[in-house]
């Protein structure tokens, strides 16, 4: 298929960006979206132009590196996928596709479609861990049974890949789905109880400091999340925060 691409080009964080039009031809429906971008970039390099910078690494939907806002949706029109798992069969010949970076005040653009998501790391530094030394001298792994339901729910929360689609989607640029998922993982496990109060308070404080907005329960983040992280995690985080303050 032949496509027109409207892509956000921005030289660096200080320079003003703009949308630029490109054409690509003979795109196979079996290609992934990023393979289509590879075709464009090879075309640009061979023409002596600068290729479009975008983050990507594992290309199987787990590293959380890819981060495109495609036709007004984080990771594009499909559900339950990252951009690297989006396939061109979701588009048709002659389409015009708009491609932008994940936009949020807390995610400044580095170049083109590459944004700085280190705010997520700093939220994790504030409490995204259990304070246990890695000496191996802990008790046997089976000494504390954990109800299967709790373990499974913790796993569902821990599935978050930290891509930032929730932030890019939210009209308030809220990071509460991301933070809620991490808080929930630990809140659901006995190992996380000891530091639960400090953790949620510190992580939420850092989240606010980074300039993420608040949650107004629209639920768009849950729809666009490639890993199906549930809004329940935000409710659980709020409950944990309330519990920590009394």
């Amino acid at each position, binding site marked *: 298929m032949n496509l027109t691409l409207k892509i956000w080009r921005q030289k660096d964080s200080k320079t003003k960006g703009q949308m630029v039009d490109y054409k690509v031809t003979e795109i196979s429906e079996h290609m992934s979206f990023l393979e289509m971008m590879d075709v464009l970039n090879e075309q640009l390099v061979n023409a002596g132009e600068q290729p479009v910078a975008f983050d990507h690494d594992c290309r199987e939907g787990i590293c959380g590196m890819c981060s495109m806002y495609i036709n007004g949706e984080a990771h594009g029109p499909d559900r339950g996928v990252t951009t690297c798992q989006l396939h061109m069969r979701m588009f048709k010949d002659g389409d015009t596709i708009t491609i932008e970076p994940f936009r949020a005040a807390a995610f400044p653009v580095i170049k083109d479609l590459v944004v700085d998501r280190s705010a997520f790391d700093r939220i994790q530094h504030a409490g995204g861990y259990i304070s246990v030394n890695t000496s191996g001298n802990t008790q046997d792994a089976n000494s504390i*049974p954990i109800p299967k339901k709790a373990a499974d729910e913790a796993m569902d929360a821990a599935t978050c890949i930290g891509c930032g689609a929730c932030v890019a989607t939210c009209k308030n640029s809220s990071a509460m789905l991301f933070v809620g998922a991490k808080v929930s993982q630990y809140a659901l496990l006995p190992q996380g109880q000891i530091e639960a109060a400090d953790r949620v308070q510190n992580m939420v404080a850092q989240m606010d400091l980074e300039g993420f907005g608040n949650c107004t329960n629209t639920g768009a983040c849950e729809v666009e999340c490639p890993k199906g992280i549930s809004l329940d995690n935000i409710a659980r985080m709020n409950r944990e925060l309330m519990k920590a303050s009394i």
Partner: protein
Amino acid sequence: MALDSKVPKGPIKDKWTAYKNHINLVNPANKRNIDVIVVGTGLAGGSASATLAELGYNVKSFAYQDSPRRAHSIAAQGGINAAKNYQGDGDSTYRLFYDTVKGGDYRSREANVYRLAEVSANIIDQCVAQGVPFARDYGGLLDNRSFGGVLVSRTFYAKGQTGQQLLLGAYSAMNRQIARGKIEMFNRHEMLDVVVVDGKARGIIARNLVTGEIERHSAHAVVIASGGYGNVYFLSTNAMGSNVTAGWKVHKKGAYFANPCYTQIHPTCIPRSGDYQSKLTLMSESLRNDGRIWVPKNMEDVLAIREGSRKPTDLSEEQRDYYLERRYPAFGNLVPRDVASRAAKERSDAGYGVNATGEAVYLDFAASFERYGKEQAKINNIQNPTKEKIKELGQEIVKAKYGNLFQMYEKIVDENPYETPMMIYPAVHYTMGGVWVDYNLMTTIPGCYAIGEANFSDHGANRLGASALMQGLADGYFVLPYTIGDYLADDIRTGEISTETPEFEAAEKAVTERVEFFINNKGAHSVDYYHKKLGKIMWDKCGMSRNAEGLKIAIEEISELRKDFWENVNVPGTTKEYNEQLAKAGRVADFLELGELFAKDALVREESAGGHFREEHQTEEGEAKRIKEFQFVSAWEYKGEPKDAVLHKEALAYENIEVKERSYK
């Protein structure tokens, strides 16, 4: 230089404990004055960074991604082995050790493997304490699954995302130390050289991938944890950015490179679909617990399936060839990866491949749907359930176990694997070869260590499933933190290492000149043009089977391609900016050297062992045939061009295992 593996004396089960009791320690106050650089933040690098920082060292960690959490360990799916024997099925430290040495086709170092098996149980304890949400059964205890090449269930897992959960565990341990200031994290940085001062590794030169600046970083020791080099094939299951550069740079400064030809071709990956493809996707080995692998028995069915007039589900049991169950009744679908891959290639080469390219076999879950479904019907007390009901109940169980993998498959292939069998084919997945290390995990450069997939030590010629995660975390959490102390004990009076020395200056100059060369070359071809060409040579001639003639041609071709690359490569943009093409040019330049050494190593190793299959050396049944004279590690010393590399041999002695023909029949 003679190779000294520094394996401690004494009975194998006491070596590690006795060793730890006698090494030098660094007192906590002195650790504060010692810096360690760790390159890579996957399971090995992440766990090492966290543990070294907890011990009190000042750690500087480097990742080319934007966060340590994105290192490619994150993509490991199936699980992690540990000799816990929670299932009471006869597992033990010795049995894990035995399985690993046998699985590696008797080409790994006994003492290292035993130590790995010994610390494996601690890993699970550690990860649970960190909040890793492993799968559990209804009693609240940890669940296990089986992997290839073993007869016990010792694999712990978190759905099909075990690597992700373990890496997030290591990342959380790192976060705690970053918050304390004990780890200084350098994201979006790439190591481009190691700096050796007075014969010791004392720092690195790194490029800031956002600004393009070349930076000097000093330390008392340098740890390479940068993963494997599977991307030398262009197409592999590795991440796009995975590269050999850190390992190759230390090789060029004096570290021997061991067994480069030992590559793991993983049997269950999604087949390739076209020339535009940028990477291949793994379907976890754990699927072989519940999936049965087959091709049609009759050629007319193969052709009918290819042209679409028959569906795989139309074929009766009698019309199917479950070739692994037929050839290897004892292990069936759970034979080791190298054996399963070659068997798939054998059937495809014979013309029985089921897709348009003829390079695909089926992985079928229908039998498991039925087995689980019947069990669930009993548990839920459903009388006389219909076939559909059984299937539905069974699918729910399979979904709970592997749901994310089935979803991944459907998104890529556009077919529903609950309704039709998956199509799979082998793909490059892991490299057992790597930087040579002794028992301390130190390379032949004093003060330079290599851990995880970046080293060669534990998996011999073939790695068993779920052992990479085990090795990465064992090295980082439990081995390196001890062994590095023995070396650093001599550095307590050294003081801070200055970066204002001729050695740093020379290394920085060389790196700067190289990146400027790429930008100024203005050649005719893109970096990917060369990478794809290299990948094709590697796959065709150094892939699942190799022969002397092909390897000699490969050496010639790679050498010529490298020459062409340096003359005609085209890298757009400038050095002082975010420039992915520039970063990739450096990586491909190193792959072009490694690739030739790889082929040379494969040519010299005139035997078949594990993943290295030389067509000249096979049994009548087509199995790999080892040769006693090759019971050694090939460790290559850099001498300029790959063709001039000098071979050193580390003889392998097996005192605790009888070396036998590896049989899974």
